[in-house]
């Protein structure tokens, strides 16, 4: 039985090193071809007609004027007469034409008659949602009534975090060509190995007929798993246009309206505890929406899951808005924001430093020791003890404050298969049906193969992004790095064993006594007995060595190449101008573990990126709907705000790389680092102001309103 475990930390030459991402030059020279860059011969352009109404019945559709436009090749009705539309932006028709401009003209020329129905698009006030609320039932643990009756201190607070969108820079969409015996599909996707089957199902075709290719993709964050209705319609337009390829990507407004959102979360939270900071009771009444299906239920209380006495009530609200999709750590940023806000407010009320209260209460979390260490490290990096003062002691116009957010995530590797081939000329090829969504997956796979084979990274050719390669899971839930690293490791070890068998007779050493190191095959314990990699491969003969490796989630934890359970602490320092209400980020600190870190350089970038996303969500991002028209008011990038370079302050990232974390194997990183930042920033603002701003994003209007409320109280 082959030995797959990772080489000891101190012996690794490639893994764990700060390697620049391999596809960096392609991206930074503009030569990387994203799906939206695919210009095939005879390309047609697709455009969608979407519903302006949030709730309506399609009465009739008149295509005559659109059909008459020269250059239109096909028009399809997606939501025909009688269809009940449940959110604005719903796809009604699709058009293909020889230019994008003509396709848009045709969309404008289609006449649709709707019967407009009543809609609901706002959920910030639960009292106003009426029958659209659906209670999820009460959960009770211990005796919360007694805990609150006996408590030395109690707090109650209202908190809210709105719906936000993914706002992927490359919009959703694809280029697709319906050929005689296959469909070529170039989607912007997080799921190369599964999206083809998804499209085939929608088109009622055998899965074998869909050929998927996606070498680069411009951001997904959880929103780009399915083939989507627009993918299937692009395919049908191609078919109806004689198989000519159709490029159809959503325009920005449609992208921000229907291509995925993160559910909102609102809650009234009561905390009971002792004056020494020990929390004894929790009660929350929360509600959330993820669109028409309701959806969104944050795990409360977050991280501090074993507060002894708890009562939770949650209500789902169904709205006539575009549906939710997974958004980098589904439900967790909301849960962290709600929980850490309530705990910070409790600390403020009893006059304790929230850092002390967090330290005291991580005892009721799943990983108390890790959190204690991480809180201490983050506090050191933030210089917390020197900087912290209670919110009531702040003076002046510009007031600074500190806050904490906490994170937990699974992150075990997904199912993944990898094929590694060693040729007689010494070249090595890795094939894996995974995708690089900007997380340096391509680079990390290369590092694992190079480490295992004792070769430089330049000797390894990694092929991914195509569904003709062995299947590997979608990139969601921070499962990719564990999955692909483990399958690549196993494929490389298996291939190496075959190579050792080939060269053992020549070297006069038993195959199991050989190892690969520094581009050589070497006898263990006798470095003088060695063959160069090239010489060794010459023994392979005409048929290359080609071996598979597989990560099976069921047994992965036992094998130890990847496991789950990432923890993180984020701390923020902000400065608030109490006259203008503007919140400025001074610094955000992240301390993050994710087990064995394959590439600290790209891992740090990913964490820094998550901090910036947290800044966006804490200060700027909010999908604003209008109850009168039922539409999204800010479905553009001018009023759907994202942070720019001047907005992010100083970012300090500390990857918690230690022998004990390393020994846990690889754990995913993408989600855990994107969880705690909003809480940290919101809490820092509360500390600076001496009053809680109940709702993020912390716009000047909300900050000033919170200050005014305090004055009026």
């Amino acid at each position, binding site marked *: 039985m082959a030995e797959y475990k990772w080489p000891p930390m101190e012996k690794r030459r490639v893994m764990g090193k700060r390697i620049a991402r391999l596809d960096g*030059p392609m991206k930074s020279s*503009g030569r990387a071809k994203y799906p939206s860059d695919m210009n095939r011969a005879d390309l047609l352009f697709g455009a969608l007609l979407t519903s302006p109404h949030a709730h309506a019945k399609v009465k009739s559709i008149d295509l005559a004027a659109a059909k008459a436009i020269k250059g239109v090749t096909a028009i399809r009705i997606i939501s025909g007469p009688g269809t009940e539309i449940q959110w604005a932006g719903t796809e009604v028709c699709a058009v293909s034409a020889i230019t994008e401009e003509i396709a848009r003209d045709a969309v404008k020329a289609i006449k649709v008659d709707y019967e407009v129905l009543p809609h609901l698009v706002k959920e910030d006030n639960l009292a106003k949602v009426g029958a659209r609320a659906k209670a999820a039932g009460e959960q009770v643990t211990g005796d919360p009534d007694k805990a609150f009756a006996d408590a030395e201190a109690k707090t109650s607070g209202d908190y809210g975090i709105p719906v936000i969108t993914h706002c992927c820079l490359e919009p959703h969409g694809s280029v697709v060509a319906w050929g005689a015996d296959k469909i070529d599909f170039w989607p912007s996707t997080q799921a190369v190995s599964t999206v083809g089957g998804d499209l085939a199902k929608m088109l009622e075709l055998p899965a074998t007929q869909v050929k998927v290719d996606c070498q680069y993709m411009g951001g997904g964050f959880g929103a780009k798993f399915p083939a989507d209705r627009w993918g299937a319609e692009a395919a049908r337009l191609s078919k109806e246009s004689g198989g000519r390829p159709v490029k159809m990507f959503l325009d920005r407004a449609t992208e921000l309206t229907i291509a995925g959102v993160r559910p909102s979360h609102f809650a009234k939270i009561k905390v009971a505890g002792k004056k020494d900071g020990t929390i004894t009771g929790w009660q929350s009444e929360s509600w959330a929406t993820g669109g028409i299906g309701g959806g969104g239920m944050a795990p409360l209380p977050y991280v501090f899951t074993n507060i002894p006495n708890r009562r939770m009530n949650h209500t789902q609200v169904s709205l006539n808005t575009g549906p939710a999709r997974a958004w980098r750590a589904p439900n967790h940023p909301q849960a962290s924001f709600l929980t850490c806000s309530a705990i910070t407010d409790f600390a403020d009320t009893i006059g304790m430093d929230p850092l002390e209260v967090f330290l005291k209460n991580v005892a009721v979390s799943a990983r108390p020791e890790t959190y204690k260490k991480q809180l201490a490290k983050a506090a050191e990096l933030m210089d917390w003890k020197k900087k912290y003062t209670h919110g009531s002691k702040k003076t002046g116009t510009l007031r600074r404050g500190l806050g904490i957010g906490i994170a937990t995530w699974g992150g075990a590797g997904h199912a993944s298969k990898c094929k590694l081939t060693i040729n007689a000329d010494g070249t090595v090829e890795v094939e894996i049906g995974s995708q690089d969504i900007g997380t340096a997956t391509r680079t990390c796979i290369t590092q694992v193969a190079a480490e295992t084979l004792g070769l430089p990274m330049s000797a390894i050719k990694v092929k991914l992004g195509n569904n003709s390669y062995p299947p590997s899971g979608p990139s969601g839930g921070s499962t990719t790095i564990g999955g692909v690293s483990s399958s690549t490791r196993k494929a490389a070890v298996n291939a190496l064993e075959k190579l050792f068998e080939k060269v053992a007779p020549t070297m006069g050493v038993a195959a199991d006594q050989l190892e690969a190191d520094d581009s050589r095959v070497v006898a263990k314990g006798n470095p003088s007995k060695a063959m160069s990699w090239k010489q060794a491969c010459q023994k392979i003969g005409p048929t290359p060595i080609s071996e598979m490796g597989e990560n099976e989630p069921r047994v992965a934890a036992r094998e130890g190449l990847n496991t789950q359970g990432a923890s993180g602490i984020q701390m923020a320092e902000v400065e608030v101008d109490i006259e203008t209400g503007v919140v400025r980020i001074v610094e955000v600190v992240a301390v993050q573990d994710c087990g064995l870190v394959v590439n600290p350089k790209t891992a740090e970038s990913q964490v820094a990126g998550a901090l910036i996303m947290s800044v966006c969500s804490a200060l700027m991002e909010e999908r604003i709907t209008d109850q009168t028209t039922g539409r999204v008011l800010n479905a553009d990038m001018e009023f759907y705000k*994202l942070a720019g370079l001047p907005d992010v302050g100083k970012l300090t990232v500390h990857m918690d790389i230690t022998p004990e974390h390393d020994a846990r194997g690889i754990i995913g990183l993408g989600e855990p680092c994107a969880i705690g930042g909003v809480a940290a920033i919101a809490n820092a603002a509360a500390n600076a102001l001496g009053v809680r701003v109940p709702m993020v994003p912390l716009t000047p209007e909300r900050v000033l309103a919170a200050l005014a409320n305090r004055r009026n109280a």
Partner: protein
Amino acid sequence: MSSSKEKPKDQQPKSAFSRRSWLQGAGVSGSVLTTGLLAEDAQAQTVANVMSGEVEITLDINGKKRSVKVEPRVTLLDALRNRLDMTGAKRVCDRGTCGACTVIVGGKVMYGCSVLAVDVVGKPIQTIEGLAPEGQLHPISKAFVNHDAQQCGYCTPGFIMATKGFLDRNPNPTVEQIDKGLSGNLCRCGTYMGMKAAVLEAAKEIKNG
């Protein structure tokens, strides 16, 4: 946030019709519109051209003359991406906010989505494809790689062209100037930390030639 691609003069476009000047004239604009450069050009162009239907124009792109058939309403960005297969510039917001389509026209940094192809006839257009010969990397691109100033990479070409235009005018920038000078571009993955270091390194490299 405000974007601050060069805003040297407070002038209103008068004659030439560009998508951005229309936006401004229509009162839709916010602080993000960077009309200064286009306004200068508009001042210079005194005779309004009237065109309709598809016309063949010649664009001067990266030192090469390229013929392309466009309707007058086609933006420079769409001419590049949809008709000339030059896909380095990306279409993201399509409304002059995010900078993913940044190109340099006549030495000036512009959003390709906010200028019409017919309006840049006769002006030298530089795109990311022309920054370095095939197989080579411009020092700015190299610095972005070194500092991992990219994740998904979709905003990267726009940032690199914005950096090029910025460093051409500010060869010795401070971090504060970089923040301001590149604030007309947006990244969703959050690569600003590496980007600040990359721009500083690129400035040094370019100076050392």
